Every structure is written in C-alpha cells, then in structure tokens.
C-alpha cells in the first residue's frame, strides 16, 4: 500500500511561522524518501478543502497538523478550521500528530472514536521560548532550538515507522535530556535558559496520545 505523509504548514503569524520552521527538516527528509508520497499543504493551501481531499484516501496516511488549536479544533491558514468534529471521521485508519494547542483533549479522542489508529498531541497549550531580538526569523532563533529538536524527534520517529507509543517515549526521553541541560539558571540568571527549561517541562507534561500505541506509518 502506498504511504502518504500529509503535512499542514500555515505561517500567517509569529506562532505558525515558528511551527513552519520546526517542520522544515522533516519535509526535506520525507521528500527524499521514495517510498513516501508527500502532500505538503503550506500557506494558503493549509485549508479545509485541501485537507479533506488529502484525507479522502485509503493510502496509509500519517497526518501532521501544524498550527493553532484548541480542544475541539485544529486550524490552518488564517486560523480557519481544518479539522473538527464535522470532518474528523476522515482520520479513520490514519495516524495523526497535531503540533497544536490542546487538541488531544477532545478532538483526539473523537478522532480515535471515528477509527483513527492513533492521535498524538498536546493536552494543553504548546509553549516555547523565542529570542525576541530575532523573533522575526524563527530559523535563526537559538532559544527555539530545543523545541525544534523535540518536535523533529517525534515526527521523524513517526515518519520512520516507529510505533506511536515508542515515538512518544523517545520524545519524552529527549525532553528530559534537554530539561537537564536547561533546568537551572545558575549560569544565566538574567537570561532565558531557565524559562526554556520551564517551557520544556510544561510540554513534557502535556504531550500524550490516544489510540493504539503500536500503530505505525
């Protein structure tokens, strides 16, 4: 069966620009893998119609949503809803990872109830620390580097075919490693290092999944 990697990448504001930056590497990697058909929905293509078209397939699909979110909805370009209770049935048999705030709480559960193999996401807001002097250029933001790293570890594990449960455990281990590095402000009392540690620990607390931990892409 063909494998489809669907990724939504809006970047209409500061927050989505960071997420867009975080997913650059995995898009490159997936495009180089000839066994994977990449369906990249960037900017204005990150809309409901395109998402529904991409999800309307029997191909083995990993859907990676980047954008704003709340408990019931994941949003795309210009914060228009792209996945919610009205179209979540399209995630049937798919593996879903939403790098978006809070969507695991209700939408994730609903997705699995409608037959998704697994839904990975956050139970609360996703946090990161940006360097305000370079915040217009997320690619160059060193404060954001640990957050970029954990996001990449998770999606790369999923794209590589690791079972969802193991991918989450690997990501949690990476979070813990980074927290040990950024956990104290002794050497940086007036900088952002301890704030980075706090945000990493928040995300570690909120990252979770529902569905089958043995599901793979």
């Amino acid at each position, binding site marked *: 069966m063909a494998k489809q990697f669907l990724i939504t990448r809006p970047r209409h504001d500061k927050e989505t620009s960071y997420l867009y930056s975080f997913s650059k590497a995995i898009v490159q990697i997936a495009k180089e893998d000839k066994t994977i058909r990449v369906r990249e929905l960037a900017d204005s293509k990150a809309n409901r119609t395109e998402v529904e078209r991409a999800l309307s397939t029997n191909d083995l699909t990993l859907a990676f949503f980047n954008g704003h979110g709340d408990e019931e909805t994941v949003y795309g370009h210009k914060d228009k809803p792209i996945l919610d209770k009205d179209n979540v049935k399209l995630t049937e048999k798919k593996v879903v990872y939403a790098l978006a705030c809070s969507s695991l709480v209700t939408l994730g559960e609903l997705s699995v109830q409608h037959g998704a193999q697994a839904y990975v996401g956050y139970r609360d807001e996703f946090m990161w620390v940006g360097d305000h002097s370079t915040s217009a250029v997320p690619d160059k933001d060193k404060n954001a580097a640990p957050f970029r790293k954990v996001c990449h570890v998770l999606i790369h594990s999923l794209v590589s075919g690791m079972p969802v449960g193991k991918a989450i455990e690997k990501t949690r281990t990476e979070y813990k490693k980074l927290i040990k590095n950024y956990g104290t402000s002794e050497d940086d009392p007036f900088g952002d290092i301890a*704030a980075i540690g706090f945000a990493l620990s928040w995300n570690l607390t909120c990252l979770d999944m529902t569905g089958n931990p043995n599901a793979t892409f």
Partner: protein
Amino acid sequence: MSDNIYEEQKKLVLARLKTINPESKIMLGTKRNISIKELINHVEQGDDFGKKIIQAQMNMLKVLVAEQ
C-alpha cells in the same frame, strides 16, 4: 493531594520561579506571550493555570534529580 503537600509544592515552585529573570517571556501557541512574573502571579493566586504550572515544575524537578 493534601493541602499541606500542595502548599509545600507551591512554596518550592515559587522559590524556583523567583530565581528566573521575571521579564523572560514564554510564547504560547494561543497567540500570547507570558512572562515569568505572570507565571508567578498565577501560582500565587492558585488558579487552574497556576496549578498546572506547579505540576510542570514538579515534573521538572523529578527529571532533574533522576539518574541519567
């Protein structure tokens, strides 16, 4: 969790947060920034967000004291 444990955790977390530059800002996916000073206010007020902050900080301490 008993009230005593919660109050002890709250004190510990406040002590830790007060070592961080209060003007450091954390970006939230919900289109807002929050400063360390504001995190401290939430913990002091004991609201839902403050309680989650305590939980995240306690998890962080567990990670920091755990063996590699």
